[in-house]
């Protein structure tokens, strides 16, 4: 409906705008302040409203939807408690730079500031965890404000945007002309996209001069849909690549050039290669503290190239020798062009020697676990899931050990398949996120790898799964512990386990059934395969696999606080292997 303006109420403008913006799903929960909007909502069916069971669920579902599709996730919640319940999900999206627009109802303009019923300063509360937010004060500016919100959320370094809408703005009887704003101009907001050509050239020169090069990429590649360009780049160079937790899948997880995730629970080889490399290029990653370990000992021999669209990411924690502010896709495309036309060449002998060293680290098998145990090992469950889904499923996860096992044992060959909360580490994210993904891709396998602690933080969304036929598979790695916390207490507090025992657990099978789903409990390794098969055979059902795993399993390797990449704690199995491979120098 372009060109001709029509007279619409605020509520109608919101709905019509969402249609015009191409929004298909709206995750929400009604209440007093948004009643007018809900009235307009039920008069149409272009925008599908998904009634969650808790506003946190709405935000995570929208977030999962956004991560899987690349399109902004959209939520609608009421004022006061609706808005505060949404905050955790908004902060989760903010930390991982996920495009999201959250519409919050607000009390009528004339009572703002009077402690009105269900009034909370939503703009103030959300300010530190949004990319930007708006309070709509003028009905005539509603459409423009919504457009700005979507533009800000999706451009540059993406992020969540809150639009707070007082009830009077949505009144049904007050109508104003509406025309979909195709374009928006904001003088104060110009996300810089293009990397400086001279810097890009310098970067390529430095890369080609390397003897022990390393490529380290992150969520920025996925956010910018730069996977294809990254693959070309990495293959042209023949260098090893590591990816952060947020970057997994951008470069294929099964490709031999990928040497695993880096950081706190990354592979031995990726972390050692980081420590020993002489040139490091970082693209779309932010040198998070779970990556760098102690910064004073980070990459001691490396010259560092950093490509990021956000200038504030560059030299924030680690100084960049060659900073490049630009979009990952554009900069990678430029570098690929230069690589195709350059006279310079790589020192193949040095590169070969470098790969040999990396392979010797790989031989130690840092992810090895006990395959003969009578207890179900969590790693084995993820491997089984990988087999049964051909490595092609969308996997969401919660936060804890299970999240790390998922990242370590389910190699993703495509971007946007691995969906987890990395920056905020929000327990409760997995199930609603899976729901959001399944709504976007109803024909795909979607599984949520979770723990008995995390799943209980948004378990109510099982009802939403039934209502909207989002048949997701819940893989509950049930260790009866807040396992990740228990691991820290084992390592750093001499096993003084303090309040990590998940006592009084519900019977998850019965719980799933009570919600109208299928529940299956697995407690023997021998039953794992069949149960997993069964779960995925039930295409149209949400299945809760409650898998009783080894309580004491730990995530290895681990870089503890204050340690460097070459100071990992390794698993007992790797220690044995290391001893048997014996006598290898770890020095450059």
């Amino acid at each position, binding site marked *: 409906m372009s060109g001709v303006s029509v007279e619409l109420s605020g509520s109608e403008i919101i709905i019509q705008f969402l249609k015009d913006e191409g929004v298909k799903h709206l995750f929400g929960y009604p209440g007093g302040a948004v009643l007018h909007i809900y009235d307009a909502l039920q008069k149409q069916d272009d925008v599908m409203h998904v009634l969650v069971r808790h506003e946190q669920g709405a935000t995570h579902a929208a977030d999962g939807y956004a991560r899987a599709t690349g399109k902004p996730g959209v939520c609608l919640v009421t004022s006061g408690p609706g808005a505060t319940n949404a905050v955790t999900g908004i902060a989760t999206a903010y930390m991982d730079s996920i495009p999201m627009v959250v519409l919050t109802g607000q009390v009528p303009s004339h009572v703002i500031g009077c402690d009105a019923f269900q009034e909370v300063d939503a*703009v*103030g509360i959300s*300010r*530190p965890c949004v*990319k*930007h*937010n708006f*309070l709509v004060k003028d009905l005539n500016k509603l459409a423009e404000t919504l457009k700005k919100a979507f533009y*800000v959320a999706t451009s540059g370094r993406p992020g969540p945007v809150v639009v707070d809408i007082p009830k009077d703005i949505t009144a049904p009887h007050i109508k104003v002309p509406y025309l979909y704003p195709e374009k928006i101009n*904001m*003088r*104060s*907001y110009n996300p810089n996209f293009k990397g400086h050509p001279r810097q890009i050239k310098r970067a390529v020169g430095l890369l080609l001069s390397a003897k022990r090069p390393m490529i380290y990429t992150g969520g920025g590649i996925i956010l910018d849909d730069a996977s294809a360009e990254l693959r070309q780049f990495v293959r042209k160079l023949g260098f090893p690549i590591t990816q952060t937790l947020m970057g997994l899948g951008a470069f294929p997880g099964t490709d031999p050039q990928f040497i695993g995730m880096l950081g706190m629970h990354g592979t031995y080889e990726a972390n050692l290669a980081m420590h020993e490399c002489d040139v490091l290029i970082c693209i779309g990653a932010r040198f998070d503290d779970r990556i760098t370990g102690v910064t004073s000992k980070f990459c001691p021999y490396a010259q560092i190239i950093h490509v990021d669209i*956000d*200038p*504030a990411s560059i*030299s*924030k924690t680690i*100084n960049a020798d060659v900073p490049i502010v630009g979009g990952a896709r554009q900069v990678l495309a430029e570098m690929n062009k230069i690589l195709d036309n350059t006279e310079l060449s790589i020192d193949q002998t040095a590169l070969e020697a470098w790969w040999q060293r990396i392979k010797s680290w790989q031989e130690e098998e840092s992810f090895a676990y006990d395959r003969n145990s009578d207890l179900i090992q969590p790693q084995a469950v993820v491997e089984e899931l990988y087999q049964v889904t051909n490595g092609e499923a969308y996997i969401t996860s919660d936060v804890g050990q299970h999240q790390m096992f998922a990242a370590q044992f389910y190699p993703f060959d495509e971007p946007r398949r691995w969906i987890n909360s990395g920056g905020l580490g929000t327990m409760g994210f997995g199930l609603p996120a899976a729901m959001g993904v399944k709504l976007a891709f109803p024909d795909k396998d979607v599984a949520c790898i979770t723990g008995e602690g995390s799943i209980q933080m948004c378990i109510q969304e099982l009802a939403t799964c039934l209502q909207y036929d989002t048949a997701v598979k819940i893989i509950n790695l049930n260790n009866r512990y807040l396992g990740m916390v228990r691991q820290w207490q084992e390592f750093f507090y001499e096993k003084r386990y303090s309040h990590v025992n998940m006592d009084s657990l519900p019977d998850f099978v019965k719980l799933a059934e009570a919600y109208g789903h299928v529940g299956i409990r697995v407690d023997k390794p021998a039953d794992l395969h069949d149960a997993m098969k069964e779960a995925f055979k039930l295409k149209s059902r949400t299945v809760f696999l409650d898998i009783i795993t080894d309580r004491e399993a730990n995530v290895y390797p681990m870089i503890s606080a204050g340690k460097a990449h070459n100071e990992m704690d390794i698993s007992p199995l790797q220690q044995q292997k290391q001893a048997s491979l014996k006598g290898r120098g770890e020095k450059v």
Partner: protein
Amino acid sequence: MRHIVSLLVENEAGALSRISGLFSARGYNIESLTVAETEDSTLSRMTIITSGSDRIIEQINKQLNKLVDVVKLQDMTEGNFIEREMMFVKVKAEGESQRAEVKRLSDIFRARIIDVTDTTFCIELTGSGEKLDAYIRAMHENNIVEVVRSGSMGILRGEKALTL
């Protein structure tokens, strides 16, 4: 090092809280902050005095620039700039000799007496922070009733300007 950062900001409710919130959330120092509407009523001009290591200052500038409400930013410290602050001081002025003394001191500092009662003077003084400090030091401590300082404002010398 001490830095003086000038900003042009959208003149919107909430812009100030975004900026002050950034400083408190990230633990940056803020010595003073002044703000007022400019000749263009859609813009506010803000001067922030802050301090920190080079890395912190770089982050402050980048994080400020990232705020959607910030239209333009300039770290004046890198150039040739003028910095001024304004101060009101209310002092006790009782009896001939005390009143004369305050007047004499104010003349030396080119301060102006802007309000007079039988027992007090109110003085207005503009200058660098150090000059204002010196005036307060020179004034007998127990003579001072009240001090109001505006925080610094800055402007670049020469033709360079922070405008749209």
